[in-house]
């Protein structure tokens, strides 16, 4: 062997050469029946228990959903709900009551739910100014707020359709004639309060225009503390959504009767939206949702079924891998 030969031999095993010669050590997974069956069974055996645990968590959650948008319109106005809601002279207070079906452990989260409300409409989503929300008075960067950007040549703070259409129904809860305290602090994301909404930005000219959309804001409180606004500005993903209203930090017992006094201010009648009040406990997985658990169980059991079918077919049509007769060149 000459020197150059030895050189190439050595070169052949260097890492770089392994790379350039495409002979890196490799693993080559092959779909053998054993692997296939094992994989399906494995998925099944993992997914079904996970699904069951998830379902259990979902079932442990107690949830009360009360629709109130129709019930809160007095009988005479039910033919024309829109003019009722738009008429400021009619008082909008309303009350409803429900029985707690199961023991509810604090904290009990209070949500309002809107259906058929397109908070994800492109025109709506775009209509805000993050700069203004954080830094306040600024002539620039509010063009995105169209069509609600200025009033009397001054930028509206906060500008844009989202803020303008702020939800403004309010709820108070009474149990056994005593008011249940609702904690309405810390309902918004911390990062929003800290970094998206300014501490020195005050909504001094909000809802001063000719057409008033939704709720008004206390001009003495900075935006970073206007948690209802912050929650509202976090636009929803789908046209049916819940938003956090507050927390009841007391347990509710079975058969407790809760009376809710609410101000039915918000107009969902003109577009046929529904309004619901939701009280819910949470588990380690969040709220009540059987879908995730069912999906897990479904995928898991499908896997097991496929594994069984595959195994049966495999056993019914045996094939030996040493047998090469089916290969075309034989």
């Amino acid at each position: 062997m000459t020197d150059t030969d030895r050189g190439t031999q050595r070169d052949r095993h260097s890492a770089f050469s392994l790379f350039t010669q495409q002979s890196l050590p490799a693993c080559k997974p092959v779909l053998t029946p054993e692997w296939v069956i094992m994989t399906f069974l494995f998925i099944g055996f993992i997914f079904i228990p996970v699904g069951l645990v998830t379902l259990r968590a979902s079932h442990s959650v107690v949830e009360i959903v009360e629709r109130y948008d129709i019930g809160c319109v007095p009988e005479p106005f039910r033919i024309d709900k829109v003019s009722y809601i738009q008429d400021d002279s009619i008082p909008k207070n309303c009350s409803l009551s429900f029985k707690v079906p199961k023991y509810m452990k604090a904290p009990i989260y209070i949500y309002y739910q809107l259906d058929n409300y397109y908070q994800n409409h492109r025109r709506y989503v775009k209509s805000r100014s993050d700069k203004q929300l954080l830094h306040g008075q600024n002539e620039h960067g509010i063009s995105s707020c169209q069509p609600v950007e200025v009033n009397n040549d001054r930028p509206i703070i906060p500008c844009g359709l989202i803020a303008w259409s702020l939800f403004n129904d309010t709820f108070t809860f009474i149990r056994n004639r005593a008011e249940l305290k609702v904690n309405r602090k810390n309902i918004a994301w911390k990062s929003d309060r800290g970094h998206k909404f300014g501490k020195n930005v005050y909504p001094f000219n909000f809802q001063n225009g000719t057409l008033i959309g939704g709720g008004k804001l206390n001009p003495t409180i900075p935006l970073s503390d206007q948690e209802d606004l912050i929650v509202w500005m976090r636009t929803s993903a789908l046209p049916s959504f819940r938003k956090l209203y507050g927390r009841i930090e007391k347990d509710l017992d079975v058969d407790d009767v809760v009376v809710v006094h609410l101000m039915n201010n918000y107009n969902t009648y003109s577009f046929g939206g529904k309004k619901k009040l939701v009280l819910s406990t949470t588990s380690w997985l969040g709220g009540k949702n059987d879908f995730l658990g069912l999906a897990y169980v479904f995928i898991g059991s499908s896997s097991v079924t496929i594994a069984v079918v595959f195994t049966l077919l495999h056993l019914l049509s045996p094939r030996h891998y040493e047998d090469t007769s089916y290969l075309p060149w034989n």
Partner: protein
Amino acid sequence: MDPPSKRTRIERRMDRIIYVLFSALILVSFVGSLLFGIETKKDGGDYGRWYLRPDITTVFFDPRRPSVAAFLHFLTGLMLYGYLIPISLYVSIEICKVLQSIFINQDQAMYDEETKRSAHARTSNLNEELGQVCTILSDKTGTLTCNSMEFVKCSIAGTAYGRGMTEVEIALARKRGETLDEQRDIDTVESREPVKGFNFRDGRIMNRKWVNEPNRDYIEKFFRVLALCHTAVPEVLDPGKIFYEAESPDEAAFVIAAREVGFQFFKRNQTSIQLRELDRSSGEIVDRVYELLHVLEFSSARRRMSVIVRNPERQLLLLAKGADSVIFERLSEEGRMFEAETKEHIERYSEAGLRTLAVAYRELDDDEYKRWEQEYVKAKTSVSADRDDLLDEKADMIERDLILLGATAIEDKLQKGVPDCIDKLAQAGIHIWVLTGDKKGTAINIGYACSLLRHGMKEILVMLEKPGIEAIERDKEEFAKAYKIVEKQIDEGISQVTGESNTQFGLIIDGKSLIFALDKNLIIRFMELAMKCATVICCRSSPKQKAIVTRWVKSKTGRTTLAIGDGANDVGMIQEADIGVGITGVEGMQICYFFYKNITFGFTLFWFEAYSSFSAQPAYNDWYMSSYNVLFTSLPVIALGVFEQDFSARHCLKYPSLYKEGIDNVLFRWIHILGWMFNGVLSSVIIFFLTTNSITGQAFRKDGQVADYSILGLTMYTCVVLAVNCQMALSINYFTWIQHLFIWGSITLWFKFLLVYGSIPPTLSTTAYKVFIEACAPSIRYWLTIILVVIATLLPLFSYRAFQTRFQPMVHDSIQTRRP
């Protein structure tokens, strides 16, 4: 005529797929804008989504002019769903091709020790076509053979010398089923070092034994002719070692042969040639000076060359060598002594695949020479346009009345491994055409030698070069007759081929028949016949015919053709073919995957849009959208394109029929493409509906927070990135650390991106600000959802692959499962 563009079939197919995707894009955008128009129109009436302020809108959402809004929305839609069109595909594919070319150039398995050169991919464009070659068109000399000539046999004065067996002879013997005589009477004395260009073994000649032969005079003359009649120049590098610079390897082989026998040509100047040869009377080595008077050079028209020399004995000699037919017609009566035997030997040599030349000489008397020389010099110094013709004519005058000495036989060795290689190609289902200028016999025998024609293969001959059919080209009537003959032979061939479907066929056609076979009336039938034959040999074909044949093969089969050739006469052929050389690979998967990932992504956008009253609101943050093709899904595709190996090189060689999939283009059929597109739509449906139903609505964390737009977008996007990359992992057959790095790296990169992008100020990161770190990462529901969705998207493909591999395996599956 311009050579056709070498665009690959995959590229052309890809263009068509792009049209399909483009139609899908238009359709989706159209449906979206139609529904958007309807929704927007409703806003104008008593539908009353007051929160959108339909009373003061821009033209984009104007409910009073819904058709304009819909049209503008259509344009927005084109932008939004532009993700369906894999623009980056072309970029990725180019990158892959360049990298592939680099690998081809670097490949040590394609490195030639002798020339110290490695393979060189001159264009990166055609790599993937190499996997789909259906027909190979090859030249013979220099492609199947080495173009390095070896002197192996000769016939002197009617006696055949040279006992070595040529490769063709060995193959023929094997074909006849003869067992090879292991001791092929190679003289034991001859354990000499092998000499390049010389493979002559005969105890009667070598080592000065020729002086004992009865016809030693002829032998002496014969080798003197070889030593003198040439234009080679000796180069003495080391003392005792002489190299020859010759115009052709044949000529070098002659001079070397003469040297080895004992007529060493060692010096040449303008007027003389010096040989170092054996003086028979004294038995000593002497230097003899031959005065070189004239060289009548070789030309393809003359097909011979001769020199006029005066030997030390002052004799004037004309020494000639040339094509047998040319020399034979110039022999004098007394010079024909060995004609019959020599002819027979030449016949035998050419059947053995050897190149033959006849050798002759003539003694000139001084007067005749002087007279001729005057005329010749005059012709030589003339300045008329027909000087060359004149010279030929004068040369012709002196080159007559020759005395035949014998014939030489030179072997053009087959390239190493040619029979083996051709065998593999045949197993891989590739049709091989060899276009050669050789005679029929030579061509057929070479065909056997290099496995082109195999045992058990039936030969179909289409021939015009039979006795009685000569000079057809000029005569009209003969022309028609010849046409009929060719037509009949082709028709017979077709019926034979269709009759016996189990046997393989080899078609042999000669150049003259080819003229008729390529006629537009016959070509279809001819190609029908040719495509059913595993091997086609065109003998006696001209370079022009090579190009025409190539073009027809390409257009008739519609498949990829590859032409190999080394010489200038192959240029036409190479330009016509799809590929000008090479072998292996399974492609198309990469492109299918590209469509899959873009469709998956694009359709999740569409489903989301359907839930946002078709307002063209993208489901994801802008930056997620733009990084999709660049950051999170591009590298695995490139890894697949460049590094994927379904099989090791060893396996490919062991199971050549793997290649059939490539030829049939199995992995890139429409059904396959549509399957992947369907899989993409399915994945998008699974991702969208599982994600939305799992996380939106109720609280998605223990602290009661709900999932908003930004959280849904992030979750869906995570699922898309994971699903798309895992699908890739599922489709890959070959994992080195590169694949692992690229696939899992892309996924990790996405999470790192979320951390980095989520931490830059909200005026820049907008809806992505701290969403992952604050909202998603601590939520168990988020993680459970993505696991569920990823497994759910993988299951359909995995199940399909599992069942298909087990119950309807393709060739590559079968071999993969057999792999240790």
